């Protein structure tokens, strides 16, 4: 083994959501320390929501994250509804599923086409794709636009969706637009088959034994179900917090989490590992070859898992749009105005957990656990291992630093971390 001392720093990791720096300290040929420093400034949402009306808080927390704002909005609304005994209608639940599908289509597409593809072809940016691969950019833009248009139809907008509210949706669906949306969604299916094929054949592999955790929903709709783990535990949504432990990360404006005292991984890979049988039948039919890969411990299969989730989101959305007669409905009303409640949804990057306390209609506290924060400890352990593996391969010291940087950035991108989100952590002293 190479016995070297080396400090590797990556300032401003690119092609991820938000800003983060990474420092790796190597002594005597072994990784001594990994610091992933999330450089997003806190915006103090935890404090800002205190005293605000229950009806306004979901739109406020939507601003925690640009790309997955719909997940924050939906998770927070669910927490308000559980707290105040609001029972949303069956149609509202269907509309929420469509809203979540629109999010998954465009958010996963952004990650796979714009963040990961450059690594696959050794480029700085997807905009630099050579002529013979340029078609992929056209496909990327079509896929994102289809997700964007579905968001517009159901929820009013892809980022900070205005129609989704506590108790229901404020706007009636414009039925005239549905056939065009169905057509567009069907038209991007071949692109997603291409995309899955790319990641299926991608030779990247990194494995380390870990625990996967996800909300397993019976129709893979990301909304309601039980939390499952790869060690076989099944947990009710409201009890999730009992199993999580906050971990302080030095020099970072965020904290990490452990599940039952150990690192774990959430996100598309966890969902596919734990719940692939609940995918839509058309997805299962056309993606059988890709689905055989799961369960998988290869972190890079998170990319393939995301492509499969785009397909499921298309297929289930199409079925819902083809078979539902949407009607105008009044929003469901709260039966009480004080209490505590928990909302859990699967955001694109994993399980998102909201716990609210409300007094007389005003939020007393909000406690949220973000997918990226749950992944941070696991990510740190993976970075340690991948760097130790590179060191063990006894590379020339000159090429070592470059290779470490390249491989570590690639690994971090596979997690699809969201640093804007990760800076919003809870503080236990409220309890």
């Amino acid at each position: 083994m190479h016995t070297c001392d080396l400090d590797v720093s990556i300032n401003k990791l690119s092609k991820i959501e938000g800003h983060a720096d990474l420092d790796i300290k190597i002594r005597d040929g072994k990784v001594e320390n990994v610091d992933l420093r999330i450089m997003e400034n806190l915006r103090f949402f935890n404090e800002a929501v205190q005293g605000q009306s229950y009806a306004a808080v979901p739109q406020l927390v939507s601003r925690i994250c640009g790309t997955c704002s719909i997940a924050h909005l939906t998770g927070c609304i669910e927490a308000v509804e559980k707290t105040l005994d609001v029972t949303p209608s069956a149609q509202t639940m269907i509309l929420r599923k469509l809203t979540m599908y629109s999010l998954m289509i465009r958010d996963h597409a952004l990650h796979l086409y714009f963040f990961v593809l450059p690594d696959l072809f050794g480029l700085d940016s997807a905009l630099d794709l050579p002529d013979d691969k340029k078609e992929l950019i056209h496909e990327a833009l079509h896929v994102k636009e289809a997700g964007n248009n579905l968001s517009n139809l159901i929820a009013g907008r892809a980022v900070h969706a205005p129609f989704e509210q506590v108790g229901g949706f404020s706007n009636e669906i414009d039925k005239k637009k549905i056939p065009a949306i169905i057509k567009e969604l069907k038209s991007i299916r071949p692109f997603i088959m291409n995309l899955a094929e790319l990641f299926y054949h991608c030779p990247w592999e990194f494995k380390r034994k870990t625990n996967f955790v996800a909300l397993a929903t019976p129709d893979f709709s990301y909304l309601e179900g039980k939390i499952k783990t790869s060690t076989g535990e099944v947990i009710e949504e409201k009890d999730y917090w009992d199993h999580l432990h906050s971990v302080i990360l030095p020099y970072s404006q965020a904290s990490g989490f452990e599940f039952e005292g150990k690192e774990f991984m959430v996100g598309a890979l966890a969902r596919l590992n734990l719940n692939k049988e609940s995918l839509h039948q058309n997805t299962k039919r056309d993606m059988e070859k890709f689905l055989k890969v799961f369960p998988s411990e290869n972190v890079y299969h998170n990319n393939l898992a995301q492509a499969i989730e785009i397909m499921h989101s298309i297929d289930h959305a199409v079925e819902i749009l083809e078979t539902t007669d949407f009607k105008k409905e009044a929003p469901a009303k709260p039966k009480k105005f004080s209490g505590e409640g928990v909302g859990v949804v699967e955001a694109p990057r994993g399980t998102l957990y909201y716990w609210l306390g409300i007094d007389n209609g005003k939020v007393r506290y909000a406690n949220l656990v973000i997918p990226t924060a749950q992944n941070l400890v696991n990510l740190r352990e993976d970075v340690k291992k991948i760097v130790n593996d590179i060191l063990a391969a006894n590379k020339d010291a000159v090429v070592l630093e470059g290779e470490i940087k390249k491989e570590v950035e690639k690994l971090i991108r596979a997690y699809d971390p969201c640093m804007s989100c990760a800076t919003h952590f809870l503080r236990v002293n409220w309890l």
Partner: protein
Amino acid sequence: MFNIFSDKNKKKRVGVFSLTCDEGCSIYLTEIFNKKLLGWLEKIEIVNFLAIKDFVEIKNLDIALVEGVVTSEKDKKLIEEVRKNTKVLVAMGTCAITALPSGQRNNFNKDQLAQIKDHLKKYKFLPKALSVKEAVKTDDEIPGCPIDPKKFVEVFEKYI
């Protein structure tokens, strides 16, 4: 390659910068790209956009699109550097124009301020969160949270 003739045709050099915010405007910009990007790339070169490419030095920009709030000393340094190196600086979105929601802390009560005081000091936050307009001179703005797509196209196309 898309950008191969950038020097010959004098494409406008565009940078997109994110200060403290949720980056919703950048994300929404990538949605506006769905229909517009390929046309724009005939006229522009995207020099800085950390969301989709590795970091490149901030230099000789024609247009800088800036989202977010100037809440820390680091934000202030970045926005001043961008200002010095761009011909046109456009404040993009509600954060850049009004300093909200990060600026909520400017109106916190005593209890709320006590909760955040140590953090502000440790991470060198400014005494008050500032909008981009308050921090440097801006040439134009695109309102909305996230940016209004029609307004974005209207403003952006004036400068390219």
